[in-house]
């Protein structure tokens, strides 16, 4: 009998608590009470001061839609840390990892936060590509772009004894026999590493439907190029800079408009100077959920500008090999719309859009 008593009491207590919980979160307009919960009072305090300037009234949660240690996670953590240390934002900023499916799990989580002014997340090109591939219900249109902060550039690297001296020689060979060249990257086809290569190959007139692309996670890409399994490594500049300095790999081209700064980096030729008129930026920035209060967007936009201009963040950029690339909300949105259109054309041609 006691057992049944235990079960019943558990059920009743839990129901009672759930009822309390339910009240709170429904008033705030989201059922997921991860970081909220202390309730309705603050929800109404959100739009705050009478003079219209919005300020955060509770701690801010930044979602990194990836695991600890990756690019998104690092950006989120470094931004949060710098903003706190430099006193740019007074409220606590916590980083939460929502890892999985190339970001789709994090975006699905953020989609539930519509209307909140205390939830931000970080993203880059995948937020355009993954929805195009049909692997995420949500794309950048479903969120509020706040500010872009940094940029990285791609690079195409080959083993140091490879037969190609520049990008044109590689593409000439690929025009003759696309099956003879294997391109390797970290992500799956249709995502960043693949598409950045395809873009340049297309600009050079290679038949992009015949490109052989292999996806190799866990740094398999650099290994495969070093041991000759694959020929070209399509990746980010910072991933291979050290390999080039140690004379293990050579860079055929970087995807930036102009040559990059830095002792090693400045030796990398751009595709442009080799006569291939194409560029690719891996921008990275912050977004808010849908229907964020415009006043809150203004607030964060300004704070990210301060962050971007701060010396502390300049040091961080230098450490990670990131470049400065600030865009405010409006400009960012236009940029994203245009970029998505470009990418869609390529994916359509490959037949990868869903």
């Amino acid at each position: 009998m006691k057992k049944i008593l235990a079960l019943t009491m558990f059920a009743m207590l839990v129901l009672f608590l759930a009822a309390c919980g339910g009240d709170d979160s429904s008033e705030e307009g989201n059922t997921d009470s991860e970081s909220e919960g202390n309730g309705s009072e603050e929800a109404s305090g959100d739009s705050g001061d009478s003079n219209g300037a919005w300020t955060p009234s509770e701690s801010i949660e930044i979602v990194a839609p990836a695991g600890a240690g990756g690019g998104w996670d690092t950006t989120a953590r470094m931004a949060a840390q710098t903003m706190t240390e430099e006193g740019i934002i007074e409220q606590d900023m916590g980083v939460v990892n929502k890892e999985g499916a190339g970001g789709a799990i994090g975006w699905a989580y953020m989609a539930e936060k519509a209307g909140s002014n205390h939830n931000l997340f970080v993203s880059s090109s995948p937020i355009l590509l993954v929805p195009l591939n049909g692997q995420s219900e949500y794309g950048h249109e479903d969120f509020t772009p706040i500010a872009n902060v940094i940029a990285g550039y791609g690079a195409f690297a080959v083993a140091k004894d490879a037969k190609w001296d520049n990008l044109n020689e590689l593409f000439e060979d690929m025009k003759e026999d696309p099956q003879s060249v294997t391109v390797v990257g970290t992500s799956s086809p249709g995502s960043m590493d693949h598409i950045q290569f395809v873009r340049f190959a297309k600009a050079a007139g290679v038949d992009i439907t015949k490109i052989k692309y292999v996806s190799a996670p866990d740094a398999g890409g650099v290994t495969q190029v070093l041991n000759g399994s694959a020929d070209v490594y399509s990746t980010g500049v910072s991933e291979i800079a050290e390999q080039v300095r140690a004379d293990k790999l050579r860079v055929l081209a970087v995807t930036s408009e102009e040559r990059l700064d830095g002792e090693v980096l400045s030796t990398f030729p751009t595709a442009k100077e080799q006569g291939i008129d194409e560029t690719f930026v891996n921008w990275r920035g912050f977004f808010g959920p849908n229907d964020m209060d415009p006043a809150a967007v203004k607030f964060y936009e300004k704070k990210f500008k301060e962050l971007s201009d701060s010396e502390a963040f300049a040091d961080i950029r230098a450490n990670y090999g990131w470049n400065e690339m600030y865009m405010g909300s409006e400009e960012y949105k236009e940029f994203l719309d245009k970029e998505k259109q470009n990418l869609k054309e390529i994916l359509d041609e490959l037949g990868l859009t869903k």
Partner: protein
Amino acid sequence: MLKGVNRKIGLILFLLSAGYLYMSFQLPTYPYIPVDADAVPKALGWVLLVLSIALFFTKDNDTEEQKAKRHIPKKDVMALLGVLGLLIIYIFLFEIVGFILMTTLFVFFCSWFLGYKKHWVNAIVSIVFPVFLYSIFVFLLQINLPQGILPI
């Protein structure tokens, strides 16, 4: 016809592999690769199909020990289902009510339900344990667990 455990399991596995195979054949094709996403699943599906048929026709030769494992007293069935029920309620309300409260309730009632009689000890453990873990995760490691309806 369905006498014997192997026959029943064989049949379940047969259906499972058929379902899995069906889904493998539904996978979209990707044109630029010699071995597509469906190749390995199809192979696995066929292998399981064959194995399930083989199991179906294998005689049961379980040891007595195994047979004893399958016989669960009714009391224990109730206990298992009770714990399962508690678990599901716990998970369902985990993010809504929050980590500390749910865990306290769960540990206390689950222990009681399974026959732990020292209620005071139980209460202390079931409060201290979640609070301790929560503090470590949230304050020390800065990994957020659901706070739910509590203010911290």
